[in-house]
């Protein structure tokens, strides 16, 4: 057991004992829902002002708080809803369900001093950003397609590799280091169309939360961040439809009761128009995507709720029938919420999810299917021990099947032989305890421990290498090369090839000087057992996930963060600043010229390196008034290196290695020194609303050739150390105007809005890349700048009834 872990167990036990108290105490519990739809509300605060204490609802709208006997005034408050104030006399355990009414309904012309998004300065949780679905829908985006991931990039510490790039990067981490959970199911690829759009349908989403640091022990398996997204359950009061028609895709969502107030359904679909890029390209191609979200929810009784949710998304990309590419995620998730008591909430999740990737290359007579399947069982308990102590604990087991690819001939004349690349199997198990502990009014602690175990299970064929080294180093040419296996063994599915065991302690502390100022600090250690084999600056759908195993070690992170938080003018403004440092062991790197696709012996091209990132983040928000928004600034550095392995004595000689990039640190592709994002929303009146964002980022690291040579007529630029240069700085300004027409008939439930947006309004041709090549016609060498989007105007029409 690692030392920090051992030290943690003691306080956990001690605080447990403290709870045994003689005073007469009762528990107030229940759920908080939206009065119009019965939709559970996440993160609603239930406050007892006189005791300066409170609780927030969990992911299923449940709350529980235990207080001394007495009469209390209770304030239930949430952004976008009217406050509820109620006096209760607590002389026995009570169950009270609150229904909150949307605020917008009551607002007329003036107002606009509604709920402020006051930051929770007393909670030990730090490095978390939430985005409301409304904000996500308001943020101007390219082609008007509201997008969760493109919105995240406006937050401090979050960047993406560019306009046509999948995923996002948090605090200098790679895209595969983000744990993306949609209704608790792991999403392996978050992008449609190679990154132009993300896979989440904003109409079906209820809540989005991004943990960048101080990650609680209930999450694990990725080292950079956790993006937690919950879908709506569906309206159990009345049937509703909503949808939109946009420049890229159209959406339609229906929800309604199956049994009124007890059972509901939600079904939402989104599809892009076929041949999306057709007008732009002169060849016969088609690129399209669709996704489908479904959800059923049944409230059996006060103590039991079940949910069944599903997601299915596919992308299709077709060039002249010569190149056909289909990929996407799918999952089915069964969840059961059970209340053991008014203090103990439990959720059982059974999740099957799958990521599929298929490719057909007609010009070589070749078809390729690959994917990952996983079976995930999770049991999470939330134990509300008192008004100052909450404990979360649970277990999780995930079984994975990796299919690196099955190759088949696509016609009888093809010379391609059917071949199944060796499937890989693994099991990841974890148990955690996570405590939120309020020590005094001003001091709160969060501490927890996750224990994770990963077993790489046996497979049909496994290579054996001399000295157990699948990568060999040539000490004369100074290059790494694939080793030739000396044997192939068949370990069998029942065996364990290698297993890993990790203690992952998490600690956070908050000290509030007063109601408006606090400092917080956190430490988290995390392990990541899966690696995305991606040799490119942003993931492509061709990238394949691979488990840790005999030659690939799990990534291990230590992250430290320190922050200062302040509410200004009663929360009209808020300021959040943080510094962080993190280091990651065993970040994989690839030998020069590594082939990652359809490679049956990926260990031959991988070396274990390390990564580190550090930075400063600032988020200044204006939370009230007609004009709202934020300014986010990040100053950071992200780098990695892969030094040579320790010398191995071979033939009586010990071979030194130079490492990749001569073992020197180099900037990761997501190293953006300065990152500024400004977002503003201005409501002129009930009819017109304006939103704008401005982004400025230091150019992405890139390479310029240090020279050129010729070989067999080819002009080849050659490069020195990696990522020494940068692309020109990236910046752009987007504006959107939302027109909500006045209802002609106030009785009708039909609501609609028009969103007019202009992306990149000053038409800056931001460089996505700079390439070096010989001009085919003139024979002269040239540098080519590629830009993806210039100015892009678009119109979207949204409706609901």
């Amino acid at each position: 057991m690692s030392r920090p872990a051992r030290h943690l167990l003691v306080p956990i036990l001690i605080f447990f004992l403290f709870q045994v108290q003689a005073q007469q105490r009762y528990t107030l519990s229940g759920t908080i829902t939206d009065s119009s739809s019965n939709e559970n509300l996440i993160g609603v605060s239930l406050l007892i002002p006189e005791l300066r204490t409170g609780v927030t609802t969990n992911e299923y709208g449940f709350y529980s708080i235990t207080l001394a006997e007495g009469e209390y005034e209770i304030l239930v408050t949430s952004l976008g809803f009217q406050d509820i104030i109620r006096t209760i006399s607590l002389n026995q355990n009570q169950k009270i369900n609150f229904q909150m009414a949307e605020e917008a309904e009551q607002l007329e012309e003036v107002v606009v001093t509604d709920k402020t998004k006051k930051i929770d300065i007393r909670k030990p949780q730090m490095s978390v950003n939430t985005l409301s679905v409304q904000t996500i829908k308001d943020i101007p985006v390219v082609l008007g397609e509201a997008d969760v991931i493109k919105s995240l990039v406006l937050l401090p510490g979050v960047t993406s590799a560019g306009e046509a790039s999948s995923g996002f990067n948090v605090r200098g981490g790679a895209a595969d280091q983000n744990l993306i959970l949609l209704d608790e199911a792991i999403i392996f690829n978050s992008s449609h169309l190679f990154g132009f759009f993300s896979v989440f349908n904003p109409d079906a989403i209820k809540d989005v939360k991004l943990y960048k640091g101080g990650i609680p022990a209930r999450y694990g398996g990725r080292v950079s961040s956790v993006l937690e997204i919950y879908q709506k359950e569906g309206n159990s009061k009345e049937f509703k439809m909503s949808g939109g028609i946009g420049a890229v895709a159209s959406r339609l969502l229906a929800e309604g009761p199956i049994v009124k107030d007890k059972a509901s359904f939600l079904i939402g679909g989104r599809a892009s128009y076929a041949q999306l890029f057709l007008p732009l390209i002169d060849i016969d191609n088609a690129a399209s995507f669709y996704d489908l979200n479904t959800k059923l929810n049944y409230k059996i009784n006060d103590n039991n709720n079940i949910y069944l949710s599903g997601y299915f998304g596919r992308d299709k990309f077709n060039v002249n029938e010569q190149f056909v590419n289909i990929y996407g995620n799918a999952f089915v998730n069964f969840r059961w919420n059970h209340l053991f008591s008014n203090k103990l909430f439990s959720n059982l999740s059974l999740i099957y999810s799958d990521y599929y990737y298929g490719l057909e290359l007609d010009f070589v007579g070749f078809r390729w299917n690959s994917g990952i399947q996983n079976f995930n069982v999770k049991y999470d308990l939330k134990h509300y021990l008192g008004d100052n102590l909450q404990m979360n604990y649970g277990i999780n087991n995930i079984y994975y099947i990796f299919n690196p690819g099955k190759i088949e001939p696509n016609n009888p004349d093809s010379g391609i032989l059917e071949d199944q690349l060796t499937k890989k199997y693994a099991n990841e198990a974890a148990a955690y305890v996570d405590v939120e502990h309020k020590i005094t009014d001003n001091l709160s602690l969060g501490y927890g421990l996750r224990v994770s175990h990963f077993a790489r299970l046996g497979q049909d064929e496994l290579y054996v290498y001399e000295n157990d080294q699948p990568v060999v180093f040539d000490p004369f040419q100074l290059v790494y090369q694939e080793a030739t296996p000396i044997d192939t063994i068949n370990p069998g599915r029942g065996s364990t090839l290698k297993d890993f065991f990790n203690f992952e302690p998490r600690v956070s502390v908050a000290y509030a000087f007063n109601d408006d100022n606090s400092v917080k600090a956190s430490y988290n250690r995390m392990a990541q057992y899966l690696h995305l084999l991606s040799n490119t600056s942003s993931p492509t759908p061709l990238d394949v996930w691979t488990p840790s195993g005999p030659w690939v070690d799990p990534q291990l992170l230590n992250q430290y963060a320190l922050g200062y938080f302040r509410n200004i003018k009663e929360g009209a403004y808020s300021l959040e600043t943080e510094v962080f440092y993190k280091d990651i062991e065993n970040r994989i790197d690839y030998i020069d010229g590594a082939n990652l696709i359809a490679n049956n012996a990926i260990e031959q091209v991988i070396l274990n390196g390390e990564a580190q990132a550090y930075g400063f983040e600032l988020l200044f928000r204006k939370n009230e008034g007609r004009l709202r928004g934020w300014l986010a600034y990040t100053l950071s550095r992200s780098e990695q290196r892969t030094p040579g392995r320790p010398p191995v004595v071979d033939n009586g000689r010990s071979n030194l290695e130079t490492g990749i990039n001569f073992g020197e640190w180099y900037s990761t592709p997501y190293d953006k020194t300065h990152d500024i994002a400004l977002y503003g929303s201005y409501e002129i009146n009930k009819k017109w609303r304006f939103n704008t964002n401005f982004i400025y980022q230091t150019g992405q690291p890139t390479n310029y050739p240090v020279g050129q040579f010729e070989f067999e007529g080819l002009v080849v630029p050659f490069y020195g150390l990696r990522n020494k240069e940068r692309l020109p700085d990236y910046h752009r300004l987007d504006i959107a105007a939302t027109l909500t027409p006045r209802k002609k008939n106030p009785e009708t439930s039909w609501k609609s809005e028009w969103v007019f947006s202009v992306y990149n309004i000053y038409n800056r041709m931001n460089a996505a890349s700079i390439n070096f090549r010989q001009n085919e016609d003139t024979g002269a060498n040239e540098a080519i700048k590629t830009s993806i989007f210039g100015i892009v105007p678009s119109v979207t029409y949204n409706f609901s009834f």
Partner: protein
Amino acid sequence: MRLTGLTYIILTMLIFTSCEEVIEVETPSESPRLIVEGLIRVDQSEPFLPVRIKVSLTDNFFGEIPVTNLDNILISYQEIEDGVISFSGSSTLAEIAPGTGIYEPDPDFFDDQRIPTVVTFAEETVFNLLISHQGRRYFAETRYVSSVPIISAQQGNATFFGEDDTEIIVLFADQPNKDNNYIFDFAFNEYLVTSDEFYKDQLFQFSYFYDRQFEPDTEIEITLMGADRNFYNYMDQVIEQSEASQGVFQTPVATVRGNIFDITDLDNNQVVDNTGRPELFPLGYFAVVQEYRQKVTIRE
């Protein structure tokens, strides 16, 4: 078939939706390195190997590649069977004309320096290249690799990148009972690497697309060469880097290093490897491979 090119296809598609612009960029420079172009393509029906080694120096990416001349260049060869050298020989090369940087077997030597093709009939002939240049010595070792004939190469009608494509359908039979790598030379400085991983011992047919149309009756000569794994990887990288397939799906650039290395400081006693001098290396490759040619005449 190696699939690294796929990323390139996707990239190409993205480029279609985007905008390209030639820009002025100042690229860094470093002190010149020796470049050795040493691919010897063997036609076994000819009496002698077409030995022709070109040397030059690296320059800034936007500069001119200057030729250079060598103090000495020698190719030696041998075949070892069961630990016994069954034959060996060597060839001294000389610059064909001053200032060309092109070296061929020295015609002024006291005996014939040309290498007879028969030396490649043996199973595993090893060739060594030894060069002295400006006070430094370089060395490379390579094994002769055989190839197979192209059974047919025909023009097709399909298109891929656009209406102006020209499709060539190539058919060949994989060399049986061994792992093979091949390099296709489609002329016009277009190359393709492929390995038999997924079509072992099979007849294999595929389409190659030129992103252009040709005048009718144009004759295109396609060459199929053998390659060992190292040369295959080298050509794969050379092709990738010259195609400028960086970008959103940019792969980390690699300094494409060949099989020729600096041996000046190696004394096999104190200094047994080059790890202490990672910056000192030449560029280029030395390979001796068999080739088969096939002509296609463009119709219409």
